[in-house]
C-alpha cells in the first residue's frame, strides 16, 4: 500500500542522497470496466493498480522517475535514478518547488468520493450498461446495431508529499456510462456515442435517458449531405462548443505563453472576445470531476477567471510557468507519475448566457448548426482553426437537413470576437463544459 509515510521516507531519502528538493506522488486506483453489446456482456475488466512518481531538484537541475513496482528495492532504484539524472541536466532557474507559504494548509473536503460507487455491485454495473443500450435500441426501429454500452468506475486515492513540507491525500471516485447505438436507413449507417461521467452515482444521468439521447443523436445524422462552400453563421451545440473551449485552453496554457507559442501572448488585460464571453476554471466545485483540494504541486485549488466579459484576465499557470512569466501560479499544476508538472485545467467552462438553444437556432436565417467535430486542426501559435464538422443546416431559423463531410475554418481571433449569443444550457459531463454558442461567420467548405 502507498502511504504518506512511504512517500515521506522516499522524499527524505532523496534529500539524503543529495537532492536539494524532492516531491513524491502516489496513486492507487481500483478500476472496473464492463462493456455490453446487443444485450450480452462482451468485455469485463477489473484491476487494482498503483504507482509512485518522484521529481527531484539538484542545484537547479531537474529529473524524475516513476515505477509501478513499490517494493523497497524498486523504490531504492527510483530514488537513485532521479538523483543521478538530475546531476546531468541543465541549471534552470525557474525549476523549483512551490515555497512553503504557497502550499495548501488544509485538505478541503470537496465531495470527491462516493461510497455508492465503491459499493456498486458488478451485477448492477452490468445492468446499467444493459439498460442504456436497451433504451437506445428500443428508441426507434432504425437503431439496428450497436457498438455497445460501457459502465466504468474508478475508486482511488492520490497522495502528494514534498520536501517543502507538504503532505496531502484525498480519495476520489468516478463513474461513467457510455452508449453508442447505430442507426441505419438504406445503405447509410450512423453512430453516435453519448454518455456521462460524474464523481457521485446519484449525479449520473439515468441509463434510460443516456440511451434515448444517444439514439436521437445517431438518428438525426441519417441522410446527411454536403453543402456548397460558403461563409455562414455557425451555431455550436453545447458538446461541440466544449471542443472549441478545449482548443482554446491550448492558447492560455502557461507553457504556450512563456514559449510565445500562442496568439494570446502579451494580451492580458486586453479585449480578446465579445463581451458575452466569460471563461472560468474552478478547481473547488463540490463533487465535480475536475475538482481536487490541491493541485499537482500542493497548492490549494482555486477559481480563476480566464476571460471576463471578453477581457483576457488570466493565463492558467503552475509554479514553473508562473516564474517564467513573473506571475503567480493559478494552482493548475497537473502531475503525471513521470515528468515535470504540466498545466491542466480543473473544471473549465464557458459561463452560461441567457438564451435557450432553440432561440439561438431561431435567430439564424441561413447557417450551420454544428453537433460534432472531428480532427485536430487548431494551431495555438497562429489561432488558425480548421476541422471537420457535421450537424444540421439552418434555414429561416429552423433545422432543415443534416450535413456531413464538410469543414469549418476561421481564426480564433475573429471567432472569439464573433460570438454573438451564448446559451443557458451548461451541463458538466466531465471536466469541461460549454453552453450552445453562436459565431457570426466562419468559412464552411463543402462542394
Amino acid at each position, binding site marked *: 500500500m502507498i502511504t504518506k509515510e512511504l512517500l515521506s521516507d522516499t522524499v527524505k531519502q532523496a534529500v539524503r542522497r543529495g537532492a536539494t528538493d524532492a516531491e513524491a506522488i502516489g496513486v492507487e486506483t481500483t478500476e472496473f470496466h464492463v462493456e455490453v453489446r446487443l444485450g450480452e456482456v462482451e468485455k469485463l475488466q477489473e484491476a487494482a493498480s498503483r504507482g509512485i512518481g518522484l521529481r527531484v531538484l539538484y542545484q537547479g537541475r531537474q529529473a524524475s522517475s516513476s515505477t509501478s513496482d513499490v517494493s523497497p528495492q524498486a523504490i531504492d532504484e527510483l530514488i537513485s535514478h532521479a538523483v543521478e539524472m538530475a546531476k546531468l541536466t541543465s541549471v534552470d532557474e525557474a525549476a523549483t518547488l512551490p515555497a512553503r507559504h504557497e502550499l495548501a494548509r488544509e485538505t478541503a473536503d470537496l465531495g470527491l468520493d462516493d461510497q455508492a460507487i465503491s459499493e456498486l455491485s458488478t451485477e448492477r454495473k452490468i445492468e446499467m450498461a444493459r439498460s442504456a443500450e436497451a433504451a437506445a435500441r428500443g428508441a426507434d426501429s432504425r437503431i439496428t446495431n450497436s457498438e455497445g454500452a460501457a459502465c466504468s468506475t474508478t475508486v482511488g486515492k492520490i497522495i502528494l508529499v514534498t520536501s517543502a513540507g507538504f503532505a496531502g491525500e484525498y480519495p476520489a471516485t468516478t463513474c461513467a456510462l457510455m452508449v453508442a447505438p447505430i442507426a441505419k436507413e438504406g445503405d447509410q*449507417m450512423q453512430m453516435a456515442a453519448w454518455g456521462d461521467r460524474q464523481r457521485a452515482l446519484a449525479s449520473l444521468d439515468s441509463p434510460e435517458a443516456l440511451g434515448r439521447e444517444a439514439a436521437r443523436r445517431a438518428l438525426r445524422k441519417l441522410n446527411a449531405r454536403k453543402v456548397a462552400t460558403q461563409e455562414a453563421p455557425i451555431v455550436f451545440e453545447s458538446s461541440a462548443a466544449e471542443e472549441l473551449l478545449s482548443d482554446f485552453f491550448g492558447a492560455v496554457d502557461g507553457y504556450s505563453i512563456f514559449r510565445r507559442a500562442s496568439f494570446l501572448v502579451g494580451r492580458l488585460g486586453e479585449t480578446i472576445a465579445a463581451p458575452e464571453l466569460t471563461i472560468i476554471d474552478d478547481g473547488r466545485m463540490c463533487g465535480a470531476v475536475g475538482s481536487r483540494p490541491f493541485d499537482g504541486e500542493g497548492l490549494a485549488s482555486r477559481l480563476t477567471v480566464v476571460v471576463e466579459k471578453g477581457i483576457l484576465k488570466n493565463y492558467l499557470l503552475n509554479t514553473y510557468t508562473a516564474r517564467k512569466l513573473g506571475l503567480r501560479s493559478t494552482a493548475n499544476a497537473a502531475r503525471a507519475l513521470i515528468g515535470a508538472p504540466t498545466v491542466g485545467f480543473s473544471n473549465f467552462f464557458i459561463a452560461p448566457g441567457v438564451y435557450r438553444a432553440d432561440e439561438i437556432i431561431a435567430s439564424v436565417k441561413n447557417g450551420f448548426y454544428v453537433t460534432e467535430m472531428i480532427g485536430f486542426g487548431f494551431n495555438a501559435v497562429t489561432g488558425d482553426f480548421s476541422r*471537420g464538422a457535421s450537424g444540421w443546416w439552418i434555414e429561416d431559423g429552423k433545422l432543415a437537413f443534416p450535413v456531413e463531410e464538410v469543414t469549418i475554418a476561421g481564426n480564433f481571433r475573429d471567432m472569439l470576437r464573433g460570438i454573438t449569443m451564448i446559451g443557458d444550457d451548461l451541463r458538466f459531463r466531465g471536466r469541461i463544459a460549454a453552453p450552445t454558442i453562436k459565431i457570426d461567420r466562419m468559412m464552411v467548405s463543402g462542394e
Partner: protein
Amino acid sequence: MIEPIKFFTGKFNISISDIESLLGAALSKGGEYADLYFEYTTLDSLNLEEQLVKSANRAVRQGVGVRVISGEKTGYAYCDEIDVAAIRKAALTAAHIAESRQVGASVNVSSSRAARDLYPVGRLINDEPLPRKIELLNHIDRSSRAFDRRIREVQASLADEFKVVLIATSEGRLIGDAQPLARMRVMCIADDDGNLQSGVSGGGGRIGMDFFSEQLIDHYANEAARQAIVQLEAQDAPAGSMEVVLGPGWPGILLHEAVGHGLEADFNRKGTSAFSGLIGHKVASELCTVVDEGTMPNRRGSLNVDDEGNPTSQTVLIENGVLRGYLQDKLSSRLTKANLTGNGRRESYRHMPMPRMTNTYLLNGASTPDEIIRSVKRGLFAVQFGGGQVDITNGKFVFSATEAYLIEDGKVTAPVKGATLIGNGPDALTKVTAVANDLALDQGVGTCGKDGQSVPVGVGLPTIKISEMTVGGTK
C-alpha cells in the same frame, strides 16, 4: 541481447510450471482460451528547450495482464506485481467471465522463438550514458538555429523505451520478445517581426543509437526549421472541393484514416464499419494496392510477434482497387474463422489486445511525381500532415495538412496555411487518378489511438493524385 523467458523466470522467480498452473487457473471457470502477457518496460525521455535540458525522466512499467475468452466474451485483469500470488488473483478474476461449471483442462506450454529478428540492435539507446543523449539534443538546437536567424526557439526531445514481453497461451505457446523503440522530435518556432510560425520534424523506429547519425539529426533539425520558415510566407488556404496531390511518406496517414481503421476486424465482425461486408468489392481505383506489413526491419510499427504472441505478416488489404481482407486479432479470427494476420496489439499489460495496424502503405505506381504535378490545373499539393481521425461507421475521415502549396497551371506555387482535408473512406481511394513511383515510409514518429490505447505505427505513400477532395481553408 535479453532472452525474455530467462529474464522473467530469473528476475521474478516464476517457473514454466507456475505459468502453466496460472493458465489453468484462468480457465478454471470454463473459459475456452486464456493468455498471460508479462511486461517489463523501461521508458526514458529527455527534453530540451531554451537551450536547456530541462528534465530527464525514467519510468519503469511492469506487470502481467490475464485474458480469458469465452465465446464472444472477454474477461481481463492485471496486476503490477510480477509474482505468482498476485497473478493467480488476477487469473481468477478474469476467469469469472466464463460461467460454465466445467473444470478447465490442464495446460502445457512449450517455448518457441520468433521466426525472425526484425530489430537487432547492437547497443540499446536505453543503455546510452545521458551525456551522449544530451549532446544529440544540443546538436539539434545548434543546427536548427543555424538554418535561419529567424528561428527563435527550438524544442527537441528524445524518448526511448525497451519493452521485454513474455506471452503464454492456453494453446501451449510460450514466446517472448525484446522490443526497442525510440523517437526524436524537433519543433521550431520562427519569428519574423511578430509573425510566429512553427514546424515539426523527427524520426525513429525500433533502432539503436547508431541510427541517429549526425546527418540524420541535422536533417530533422533543418526540416523543422524549414517548415517554420516556409509558413512565414503562407497565404490563406483555399476552401472547397478540388484536385489534391499528396507527397510521399507521412501523407500516407490518408490510408490509415480512410481505409485502415475501417478494415480492423472487430468493427467488421460487428457490422459497424463503413467497410463491413465489402470484401471482394471495389473500394479504390485499380491503381491502388494497400498493404499492412508488420515485418519491415527496424520500423516503428513492426513486431516480431504481435501482443498475442502470433507472428506478424504482410496483409494485402486492397489489391488493384478490390477489398481483400481485414486486420485480425485472436478474438475476431476465432469468431469469424479467419486466418490470423498478427495484428493483435495492446498498449501495455493494463490493456486488452485488439486489431490494430502496423505499417500501412500504398504500393508504387507508374507515374512520376513531376508528371502528376504537371497534370493539375488548380489544386493543392500537401506534403506534411499533423493528426487525423475517422468516424468508422459513416466512413468520414479528416487529416490536417501542416505544409501545403497551391498548384496553378501544373506548377507548385505559393505555400498556404494549414487546413483540414475531409473525405469519405469507402470512396476516397476511388478518386485516386495517378500513383507515382516514389514510395516512401514516414520517418518513424506515428502513434495511433483507438479506444484509449496508443500504439506505435508507420504509414507510407508514393506521390498520388486525388481527383476531388474537400479542403478546409478560408479563401
